[in-house]
């Protein structure tokens, strides 16, 4: 008798949450920063997964939204606005930019948005570097105040760690709810077969646009969290290479699952340390990983257990097992 899968999943989630909760107390405080980064990336990447996994389109501009969010939060906070305001404003400003791009491009074919987001990303890099009065130019913006909510000030790594991961958990929860909603179903339907979805009444353009706005919003708030981490940002953090890294995280994690973004971000953060020692070769590794995975494990790491199962039953000579969710 097959043990129902969801029990394993719930157990895994529980263990994961426990590890997350206890982590900062078990390691060197300076290493906590890496895991904070993981959480921030998880938020941005989940946005990408929600968009790309559902609609089958690609965004190569997530780092630009990330940067827009970071700069927005930095500028607003330095002027004196409270963190919570800056945080949400970052998301909204990023989403507004997403609207500008998405509005014309999501009507058209798949790759238009991909190229447009890439061009957008490259353009934003130019703007970040040159609009010195606003962004501080190439050397960036520093002196960003620490995040504070009410009486709490999150100026240490450990407190920030919890802030980031609580937000990440909320984002994931929303993502989960989204997939269960009719919006989520509509998005999946569009991704499967747009013609059929439209004849059922799904306004594909609108759904895609909304999903893209969510993606850019999440990119923006992740950027805000990033700005308040080191409290200094520079254009080199938000280049198109970074966008491609976000994309890779989402793809490697697995586009079809809401946990894909989380898994991709964590994998990258963990091996990021190892990769750093390779210096410039690390991008080659990532690129190679991308190519390899797309060919052999197109659903990303999330599908790894499934693939293993199929392989094992194939080896055993069993016929394919029908899954009943």
């Amino acid at each position, binding site marked *: 008798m097959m043990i129902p899968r969801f029990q394993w999943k719930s157990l895994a989630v529980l263990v994961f949450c426990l590890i997350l909760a206890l982590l900062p107390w078990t390691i060197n405080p300076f290493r906590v920063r890496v895991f904070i980064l993981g959480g921030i990336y998880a938020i941005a990447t989940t946005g990408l997964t929600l968009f790309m996994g559902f609609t089958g389109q690609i965004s190569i501009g997530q780092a630009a939204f990330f940067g827009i969010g970071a700069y927005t939060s930095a500028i607003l906070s330095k002027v004196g606005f409270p963190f919570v305001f800056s945080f949400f404003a970052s998301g909204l400003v990023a989403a507004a930019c997403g609207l500008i791009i998405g509005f014309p491009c999501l009507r058209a074919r798949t790759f238009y948005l991909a190229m447009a987001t890439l061009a957008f990303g490259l353009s934003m890099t130019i703007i970040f570097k040159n609009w010195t009065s606003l962004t501080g130019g190439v050397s960036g913006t520093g002196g960003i105040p620490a995040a504070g909510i009410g009486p709490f000030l999150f100026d240490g790594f450990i407190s920030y760690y919890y802030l980031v991961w609580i937000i990440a958990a909320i984002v994931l929860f929303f993502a989960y709810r989204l997939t269960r909603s009719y919006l989520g179903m509509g998005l999946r339907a569009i991704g499967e077969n747009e013609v059929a979805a439209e004849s*059922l009444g*799904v306004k594909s353009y609108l759904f895609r646009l909304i999903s893209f706005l969510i993606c850019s919003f999440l990119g923006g708030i992740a950027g805000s969290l990033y700005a308040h981490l080191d409290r200094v940002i520079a254009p080199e953090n938000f280049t198109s290479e970074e966008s491609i890294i976000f994309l890779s995280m989402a793809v490697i994690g697995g586009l079809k699952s809401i946990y894909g973004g989380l898994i991709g971000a964590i994998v990258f953060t963990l091996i990021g340390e190892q990769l750093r020692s390779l210096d410039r070769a690390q991008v080659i590794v990532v690129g190679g990983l991308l190519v390899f995975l797309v060919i052999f494990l197109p659903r990303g790491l999330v599908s790894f257990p499934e693939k293993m199962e199929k392989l094992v039953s194939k080896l055993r000579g069993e016929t394919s097992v029908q899954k009943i969710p």
Partner: protein
Amino acid sequence: MEEVALLKTENISKSFGGVMALKNVTLGIEKDKVTALIGPNGAGKTTLFNVITKMDSADSGKILFDGHDLSRLKPYDFAKLGILRTYQRSMPFGEMTLLENVLCGGIPASAVGWLGGFFRTKKAMRVLERDRQKAVELLQLVGLFEKQGMLAQNIAYGEQRLLEVARALACNPKILLLDEPVAGMNPEESLEMAKLIQRISKIGLTIFVIEHNLDVVMNLSDMIYVLNHGEIIAQGEPNEIQSNEKVIEAYLGRKGIWRAAG
């Protein structure tokens, strides 16, 4: 007949390049009846469907549904009006289960809107449960109840087409446009589909079907239109059509069509 026409086309013409795909096509689909559109390959039948559902635009002519002009609509507006269509090729949502496929029919009409299910309000849960019940019933209606948990891409082609009918029904249609529902099916599957169509029409649904399989058509329809080279060459009840010279001529060269079809 014209008075109770639910869906009417008036003088629809359309050309592709230099070819007239549709020439002054005027027909009326009567409410609660099964109307069929037959004709040789390339006659323009699917083009007519595409024009009706705005996937293609007509060069001239009007389409009226329940008295309303449909010319300003987009393809996704039709479901809300109650006009649902299926396609010649099977178009399942492969990576979703059969149940989920049928549930998709509830998206636009959902009483809780897009964010239905996002906020787990009591009302939302009730609506979701009700929709789920309805989806299960529809799967029973088409005979796919046992397979509801399977992924749509894993079921047989004939079953996928039955699924699509169930999915369309989930939208509470007033009229169903079926484009060659038994295309590509073997005799058993065709019979299943024919029986299903019969069941549905008895429930009180208007059906407009394009079909090549003349056995199916003759047994099911209340009214038949024959299209050839974009023009209506005949219309009437099945027995009238069977003996119509022009119709036989249009199908000339295909011996024993009445027997061999299907």
